[in-house]
């Protein structure tokens, strides 16, 4: 598939080098900070679970208590396990309950031996969590071997979002039976700004269902059944982005989710989360994903819902290069990089479809080993559902012609409602028609000067922008509205108070083992 654009390898190499240069300061920042959510993720892996009567998880209570006593900068592992030893309360969940009741105080031991003991215990506990993650990964490998991967590329990705996990399950199963390879359960609006992960099975989300460990478990179990029934392993996706990225990543690893939405900048741009908080959280969460064998999906498509898809095409490329750099740095392999892009050019623009092909092919050829995630039209969808289904058909065709890896199925009711059962069925029928009837059309697709020229232009604009970012720093670029027209200064945004600079003696048993 690669090689239709004749991209100059030196230009490509230069783009990558610039991205690394632009990204490195952010990596340094991430390595030198921690956040409440990173620490809670450690405790979740170490076995803390459940929530208090108000629904606030014990991990939150525990981290808040530690933080009140000694701050976050040392990491919570040592204070917590030290307290466990000194109090003799080995069950951390019980410890958290006691801490919440004010009957435990935390401190950072001074003695080398005490530190060593606390660290050892922490490592053992967190190791047990990672072992679950490893077991889940092996289980996935086994199930894929048994049931098989989808027969075709792109894999077909469908959204379920009733708000009620018990409605979601049959809908997801129906979607899989109708041809979906990947089910994504969209979260309730607003969850990404909760600084905790809700607990239990939930039935009351708005335009999405809460991401909880129990919901993950229920849906994964249901899809395992369906995988068996269909003889095809159905992947499950959820969202890491938000204030709880690291924790959700840990839960996803422990419940065998297969893909996670995880973008290095989405939270900053589209949820107004503090940039530093996001960069720290995304790094840790990606390390966990790497370990869990989870494919990440980045969020470049979102830029084109606010910015113009032609004018801002190069910002997508820049962001993909940055996401790739950050992902590699966190240990993710190329096959785990579901880099995002989207079919969002104004359909009234002359040659709009060919411009889409140019952009999609550029991404394909810049990241030949990555399972690119191709997002459907949303911005230019209207209440005209007949036209909507047509646009989605051409989106599907562009996906097939340019060899995309993951196809998020577009819905004719995009501008109207979250997908109905029948919308999904109509949409899948659309995908099937296109892939079956025209899926091999790439054999007859040899981009001419228009498409090649446009791809070159976008790549060059991306390089120009990267040069500017290298000069000004990525943080400033984000503050200036470079991506998706959103202006997000580094000292603003939600969740900044959950960030702490790592002290000399910062210890994180999970990071150590990743």
């Amino acid at each position: 598939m690669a090689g239709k654009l004749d991209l100059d390898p030196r230009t490509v190499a230069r783009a990558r080098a610039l991205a690394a240069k632009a990204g490195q300061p952010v990596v340094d920042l991430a390595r030198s900070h921690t956040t409440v959510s990173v620490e809670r993720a450690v405790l979740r892996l170490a076995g803390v679970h459940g929530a208090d009567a108000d629904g606030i998880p014990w991990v939150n209570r525990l981290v808040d208590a530690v933080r009140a006593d000694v701050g976050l900068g040392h990491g919570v592992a040592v204070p917590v396990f030290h307290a466990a030893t000194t109090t003799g309360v080995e069950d951390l969940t019980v410890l958290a309950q006691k801490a919440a009741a004010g009957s435990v105080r935390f401190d950072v031991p001074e003695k080398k031996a005490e530190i060593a003991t606390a660290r050892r215990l922490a490592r053992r506990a967190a190791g047990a969590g990672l072992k679950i993650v490893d077991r889940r990964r092996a289980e996935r490998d086994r199930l894929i071997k048994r049931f098989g991967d989808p027969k075709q590329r792109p894999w077909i990705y469908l959204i379920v979002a009733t708000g009620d996990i018990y409605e979601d399950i049959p809908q997801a199963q129906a979607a899989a039976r109708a041809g979906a390879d990947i089910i994504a359960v969209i979260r309730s609006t607003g969850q990404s700004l909760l600084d905790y992960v809700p607990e239990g099975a939930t039935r009351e989300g708005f335009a999405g269902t809460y991401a909880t460990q129990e919901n993950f478990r229920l849906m994964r179990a249901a899809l395992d059944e369906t995988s068996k029934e269909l003889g095809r392993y159905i992947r499950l996706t959820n969202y890491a982005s938000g204030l709880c990225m690291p924790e959700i990543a840990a839960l996803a690893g422990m419940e065998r989710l297969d893909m996670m939405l995880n973008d290095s900048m989405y939270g900053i741009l589209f949820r107004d989360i503090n940039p530093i908080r996001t960069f720290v959280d995304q790094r840790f969460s990606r390390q966990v994903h790497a370990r869990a064998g989870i494919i990440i999906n980045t969020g470049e498509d979102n830029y084109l819902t606010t910015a113009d898809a032609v004018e801002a095409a190069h910002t997508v490329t820049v962001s993909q290069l940055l996401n790739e750099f950050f992902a590699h740095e966190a240990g993710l392999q190329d096959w785990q990089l579901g880099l995002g892009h989207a079919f969002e050019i104004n359909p009234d623009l002359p040659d709009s479809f060919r411009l889409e092909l140019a952009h999609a092919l550029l991404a394909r050829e810049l990241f030949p080993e990555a399972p690119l995630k191709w997002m459907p039209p949303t911005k230019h969808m209207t209440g005209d559902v007949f036209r909507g289904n047509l646009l989605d058909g051409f989106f599907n065709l562009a996906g097939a012609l340019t060899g995309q890896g993951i196809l998020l199925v577009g819905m004719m009711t995009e501008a109207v409602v979250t997908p109905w059962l029948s919308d999904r069925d109509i949409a899948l029928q659309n995908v099937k028609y296109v892939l079956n009837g025209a899926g091999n059309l790439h054999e007859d697709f040899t981009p001419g000067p228009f498409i090649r020229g446009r791809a070159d232009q976008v790549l060059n604009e991306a390089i120009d922008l990267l040069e500017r970012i290298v000069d000004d720093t990525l943080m400033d670029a984000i503050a200036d509205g470079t991506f998706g027209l959103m202006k997000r200064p580094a000292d603003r945004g939600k969740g900044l108070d959950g960030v702490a600079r790592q002290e000399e003696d910062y210890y994180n048993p999970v990071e150590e083992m990743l």
Partner: protein
Amino acid sequence: MIVRPYGDTTGDGMVQLSFTLPIPHDKRAEGAALQLAGKMGMDPAMLVHAKQMGDGFTFFVVYGKVGHLVDTDKVQVVERDFPLLSAKEVNAAIKRRLRRRLNVVGACIGTDAHTVGIDAILNLKGIAGEKGLEYYSELSVTNMGAQVSVPELVETAREKKADAVLVSQVVTQRDAHLHNTRAMSAAFREALPAGKRPLLIVGGPRFDELMTGELGVDRIFSRGTTPREVASYLVHALTENRA
């Protein structure tokens, strides 16, 4: 069982509706569209698309919830009230009970020239993997083809001593299919006394199978009919009820 339409949640009652009103697009037109949706029982109704076409027409798409309940127990359908037989069984039944071949005359009447449907039922080739009635050794089939006039049909039916007459009607504009069918059944009633009249069967994709009485025919077949169903019905109606 009582059910409601289902969008994405049990009981949400959601439906999609589109139509044109012969008025130009403005706020009043949108209100008019919502008024219609309201009269159809949509509440709340969301007008999600409106587009003027030419000078004086506007197309609307409306989504919304209907309050109506559907009672599946009150549904009237023409369920198959006869066993579905294999070709062998059909032939055997005719041989045993009728002791002669059963005569079938088929045609597209009026100005309708859509023969694919009736050919699917009658011709050897059949449809959906099933052979047509010509394949049945105990059926003697005369396929008169398209644009047959009612007098011609009656004449041929008489001549061939038809046990059953099969008529196809595909064009429905201005209810052509209903007019033609009524004209046909009236002609048979006029031409032949009750006992001598062949079984009258009509078929086509847009017929309502409940309308036999109104149209004066014995049976109506609609979308997706297969030859076996028709053959089985013939056996049922002509060898069980009458013979």
